[in-house]
């Protein structure tokens, strides 16, 4: 509305964010939050189990170093850049929401940044001084200490981010109390943290097992030893991860659960709840079996089996991440801003004047018979394009057609209109239609045209923007001039 709308008509805007965010969360949890303590713990085991005349068991230390090398390369490239990428993609797709959050949470993000800088500096120190630290026992002990510091800071980074996520999901907070503390005290905070922490440890463990199987040879004694240690690590954390997931899932407020059905896939997914449990139970059992085998029969463990376990563990988490990403619909900031980037409190104004009048960038401030379809396209861009495409994933013609029974027949205008007017009631994940009746007519005309033409809706990044004359400098000046003359005439009246 006030910022030109970027739009991906094939991939779907939300999908862009979801892909980057999920990738980041997976890397962050499995390679940072969980992995740093695991690596430090293993490094310490090397020192503890070494011969008296050695500082550490060199073969063991080399293996742990290689594991850390992998984590270092991935976290400082894909991990770091997807972190920035979440920000970039969110600011393209829903600029108003991230901008509002930053205005309120500036210092939270600032502190988060300081912690993050510390984390990066520590990871650089920890990794780059590894080989030098092997020269004396004192240096090695200090190095291990750095590993623990690093683990703490990785965890704190996550703990702060979770507060911001929790804030966005919890209804009511925004309007009552816009403060940082609120992010930590809201009812979703603790459950999220209690679920994410042990899950990160389990993920790191399964990844660790896989890496050990890559970096060691069959039958190596260090391989067997490492399997046993990491297997025990997983067995310790797994119960907490499952309990955390169950707890988290039960606390998500009921109103949000209503949306979960769509969250996991599409509507045809009626058994979403069962699926969720099946995945949790299924992956937990596989991880459990793997861990048990690696502790009691490490010799028979195979790399490919570990790879499969890893995929399941990541799936376990990926599913939760996807659910979280979709849960807060139709709001992007609970009870303040809808996912179409319009504030709830401005709806009466839009209903009265129409959204097109107030949108800075649009070619049709008022709907006429001549510009109807073009106006409809503009309405679609403002009201639906954050979640729907015209030709790609979750396309608007596809969802209408599916709703009317996949007949492929031309849509009936009256039915569409009465549906759109009430869409927020029947499908709670969607915000109410913001515009007036003329704009609704236009939107329907546009969607009907889409049904027969296959035209593609291009975003501001390709075709640029048209500037609404009502929202231009000229209009502003004349409005301002009017005010001045009004004031003057009032003054004159007073004088008389």
């Amino acid at each position, binding site marked *: 509305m006030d910022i030109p709308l970027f739009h991906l008509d094939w991939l779907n805007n939300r999908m862009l964010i979801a892909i980057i965010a999920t990738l980041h969360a997976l890397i962050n949890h499995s390679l940072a939050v969980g992995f740093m303590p695991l690596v430090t713990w293993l490094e310490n085991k090397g020192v503890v189990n070494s011969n008296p005349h050695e500082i550490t068991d060199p073969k063991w230390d080399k293996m742990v170093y290689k594991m850390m090398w992998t984590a270092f390369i991935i976290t400082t490239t894909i991990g*770091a850049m997807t972190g920035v990428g979440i920000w*970039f993609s969110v*600011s*393209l797709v829903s600029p108003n929401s991230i901008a*509002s959050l*930053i205005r309120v949470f500036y210092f939270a993000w*600032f502190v988060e940044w300081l912690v993050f800088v510390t984390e990066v500096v520590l990871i650089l120190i920890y990794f780059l001084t590894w080989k030098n630290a092997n020269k004396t026992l004192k240096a090695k002990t200090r190095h291990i200490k750095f590993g623990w510091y690093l683990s703490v800071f990785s965890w704190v980074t996550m703990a702060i981010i979770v507060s911001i996520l929790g804030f966005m999901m919890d209804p009511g907070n925004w309007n009552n109390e816009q403060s940082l503390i609120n992010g930590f005290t809201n009812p979703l905070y603790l459950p999220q943290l209690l679920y994410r922490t042990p899950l990160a440890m389990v993920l790191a463990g399964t990844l660790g097992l896989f890496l050990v199987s890559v970096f060691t040879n069959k039958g190596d004694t260090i391989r067997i030893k490492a399997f046993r240690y990491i297997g025990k690590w997983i067995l310790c954390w797994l119960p907490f991860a499952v309990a955390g997931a169950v707890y988290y899932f039960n606390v998500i407020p009921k109103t949000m659960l209503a949306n979960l059905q769509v969250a996991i896939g599409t509507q045809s997914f009626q058994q979403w709840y069962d699926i969720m449990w099946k995945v949790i139970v299924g992956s937990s059992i596989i991880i459990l079996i793997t861990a048990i085998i690696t502790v009691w029969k490490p010799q028979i463990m195979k790399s490919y089996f570990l790879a499969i376990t890893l995929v399941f563990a990541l799936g376990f988490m990926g599913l939760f991440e996807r659910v979280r990403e979709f849960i807060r619909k139709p709001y992007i900031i609970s009870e303040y801003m809808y996912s179409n980037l319009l504030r709830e409190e401005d709806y009466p*104004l839009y209903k009265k004047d129409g959204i097109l009048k107030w949108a800075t960038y649009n070619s049709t401030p008022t709907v006429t018979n001549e510009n109807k379809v073009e106006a409809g396209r503009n309405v679609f861009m403002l009201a639906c394009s954050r979640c729907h495409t015209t030709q790609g994933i979750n396309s608007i013609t596809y969802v209408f057609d599916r*709703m009317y029974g996949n007949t492929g027949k031309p849509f009936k205008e009256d039915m569409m209109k*009465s549906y759109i007017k009430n869409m927020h009631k029947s499908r709670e994940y969607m915000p109410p239609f913001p515009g007036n009746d003329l704009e609704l007519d236009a939107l329907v005309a546009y969607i009907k045209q889409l049904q027969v033409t296959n035209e593609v809706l291009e975003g501001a990044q390709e075709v640029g923007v048209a500037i609404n004359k009502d929202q231009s400098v000229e209009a502003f000046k004349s409005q301002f001039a009017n005010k001045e003359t009004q004031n003057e005439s009032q003054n004159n009246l007073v004088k008389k």
Partner: protein
Amino acid sequence: MLLLQTSIPVPKDIPLPFPAPEWFLVTILIISFLVHIVFVNLMLGGSLLTLWCQIKGIKNKEYDTLAHEIAKTITVNKSLAVVMGIAPLLTINTLYTVFFYTANSLTGLMWIAIIPLVTVAFLLTYLHKYTWNTFSNNKPIHILIIAFACIIFMIIPLVFFTNVNLMLFPEKWGTIKGFMSALLLPNVFPRYLHFIFASLAVTGLFLFWYVGRKNYDFESIFNQLTRYEVKKKAYSLVLAASVSQFIIGPIVLLTLPSKGLGWNLILVIFTGAIISLPAIFYMYKAIVGKPENINKNFKIVVICLTITVVFMGSGRHIYRANALNPHIKMISEKTQSFIKESEIARQESAKPQTAVSDKTDSNKGLEIFEQNCAACHAKDEKVVGPPIREMQTIYSNNPSGLKAWIKAPGKKREGYPQMPAFANKLSDSELNQLSNYILTIK
């Protein structure tokens, strides 16, 4: 031609106050940006130097070693460049919200492409660093790896400059069609060149310090090259790059659209330029002087150039403030008046709902149906769900069954979507009115 004429938009701002006083945010922006840009300079300059040394290293093995030494620093500098970028990004988002986001959006594809591009460039620098021995007999391939990284590192700043340039010119927003047209706005390339030369200068200084450190065991790494030679080369690079800035700088100033130029800006820029003169003088003296004197005055050089950079960074900000302030004023007035209008509309819409209560039961039933069910149900034909006629045949003697269904619908018909539940949305009396209506309508 009217078509060519586009107007200047006055968007609304985010209707929330700044999280801190403006001067505070501006200070953070300037300082954190400079820190960020120094590491970016080192990352870019370091990669370019590595490439250059390695090409020279084909003939002279010593330079290959030097390339390896410089390459090792990129790993650290690039990581710091990324994390240090977060604070200025956060702050510019806060201070110049609509301007920055608008520029991002109008160049959106290139903007988001930064993420995969930088990721690839980083992976390439690691690949390059960790395959030094693997490719020792295959230098061209090894050089190609760092060359690709360099190309990407050269493209990224261009995207950033295009963005921060575009955000300054709301009068151009209506004419931009994608990244390329924003790139071609005047001033992007001069500023870009200014930055590239700054990168070379900063990297030269860094190299001078890096090889001169006490605990850097230069002699055991190099056989023929001496500290003095490397330092002299580094200084020459800084000197050449700094002097070039005296040509590029004025071009940047001249190509800046006049709307943000003011005496305050000129004063700051000139002071900054003048402070760099002693540095240039001392570097020149060190290069032509005796080898044992090369380290003399290094501190002064660094201090002078740092001050110059701070002045240039402030100049950047002054230009931005000069250029945008009138527009920012309009935006904030517009935002205020919008908030007022929205408030009025809200109050109006809250008023006239008293008439509802004196409706008859069946009227109310109709109304509830219209609001909640009509989107999917019609009287005689299937829309999304079955028609009312069908409901009547199923539930004519069973109103409580109907109500139970509405509260928590099941799944019956093949090929129909799931009907939403209304348990929390309708009260008991509303449910009664609704079911009466459904079962009695003719």
